[in-house]
């Protein structure tokens, strides 16, 4: 299968604290990659580096035929990468001065020069798909967290990107709202859209992921098919993490 996005040897330090110590990742077309790991393991930073929201100190990114060294990426490269990817943030980051539909349209009209009428049509279609057809004229402040995140997913999907990066999309949500967002993400995955997901939702990872990556302390400790990672982890650190998470998971039910 073809790779959509490849990252090699990403390094990133904040001051003296080295958060990523040479991480590589290969995401194939149509794959759902779930990145697991304790907090502080660098998984969010990795995602942010891919979208150039953090400037990685070293490493290389390949997306399609475009290959860039993080350190030497110019404005044009960054814009190209961003226009081929989309991101869903932990705290939604919907444009607070725009309605739900306008949020979805913004990237289409301004960045991709899609005619407004066509963009509006696409926005309405995507909002309907996430179950918010009736909320297109609502401002973010009038929506619940779960609804905001669903708009954010519609905003990402509408761009028809080669890959969507999900940065802990459910961790800012009240527990009763997590389900609706995960359901939407499942639907997106079923459409065959390539996804990279940083999450703590084990059941989601287990059901949807094609590939699971376990990170700890700025490194990829172990990766493979979900069955292998969840039921036959090879590394001690993976086992410990899974035990802890599973325990919490059982507990909360």
């Amino acid at each position: 299968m073809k790779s959509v996005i490849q990252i090699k040897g990403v390094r990133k330090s904040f001051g003296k604290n080295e958060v990523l110590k040479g991480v590589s990742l290969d995401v194939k077309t149509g794959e759902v990659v779930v990145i697991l790991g304790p907090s502080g393991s660098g998984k969010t930073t990795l995602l942010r580096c891919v979208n150039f929201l953090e400037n990685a100190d070293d490493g290389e990114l390949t997306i399609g035929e475009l290959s860039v060294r993080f350190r030497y990426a110019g404005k044009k490269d960054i814009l190209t990468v961003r226009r081929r990817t989309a991101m869903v943030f932990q705290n939604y980051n919907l444009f607070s001065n725009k309605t739900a539909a306008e949020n979805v349209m913004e990237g289409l009209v301004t960045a991709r020069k899609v005619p407004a009428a066509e963009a509006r049509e696409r926005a309405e279609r995507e909002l309907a798909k996430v179950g918010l057809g009736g909320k297109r004229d609502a401002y973010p402040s009038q929506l619940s967290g779960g609804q905001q995140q669903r708009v954010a997913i519609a905003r990402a999907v509408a761009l028809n990107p080669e890959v969507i990066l999900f940065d802990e999309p459910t961790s800012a949500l009240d527990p009763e709202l997590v389900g609706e967002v995960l359901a939407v993400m499942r639907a997106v995955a079923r459409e065959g859209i390539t996804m990279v997901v940083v999450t703590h939702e084990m059941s989601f990872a287990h059901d949807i992921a094609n590939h699971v990556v376990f990170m700890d302390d700025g490194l990829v400790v172990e990766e493979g098919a979900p069955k292998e990672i969840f039921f036959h982890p090879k590394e001690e650190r993976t086992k410990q993490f899974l035990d802890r998470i599973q325990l919490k998971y059982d507990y909360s039910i």
Partner: protein
Amino acid sequence: MGKLFDAALVLEYAPPIFLRFHVTLAIVAASVVGGTLLGLLLTAAQLHRTPGLSLAAAGYISFVRGTPVIIQMFIVYYGLPLALYRVGININRWNKLYFVLIAYALNNAAFMAEIIRSAVLSVPKGQSEAAWSVGLSGFQAFRRIVLPQAFLTALPALGTRLVNTFHDTSLAFTLGILDMLGQAQAIGVRTYHVLEGYVFAALVFVAVSLLLEKGFTRAEAAFGRGVKK
């Protein structure tokens, strides 16, 4: 000597004084337009990484905010011809009003820069990040996402600033500008009745200030519909 205050004279002096209101408006307009443009430049300089540039901008803002506008006006009036004469431009024949317009624009720029800067910084970083993530360029993200939100946050401060600018124009008469106050004084010199003119000018200031305040409250409600968190 006559009466101390003659209400009838307030009405009599009203038309000639109000006829000079356009001078006040011209000064306000220059402060708003010039001040906003220069203020944006100052903000850009202040948020810029070049240390010399941001320091110079900060120094300018501190000076303007730390000195009375009446002094700034006279410094421009006496200093600008001198500075320009050195580079070969002679503006000694300029109308005094031009100096006042420049002085007030320079003054307002510092205040505008402060308002713009804190408003821009108040927009959460995530808004820019989301804009970049959907493929907007840095400038597009600033213009379409950050600036509209910053404008909304800044609206109350902008309203106060506009009223203050309007009040500050009342000092232009000290340079001999024939605005409302200048006219009131001129009438006072002629007729020995100066209080009536002052009172009328005060009434105009009060009325316009109240109107501006009401207008901005309305604007906040209109622009902020649904958007405010």
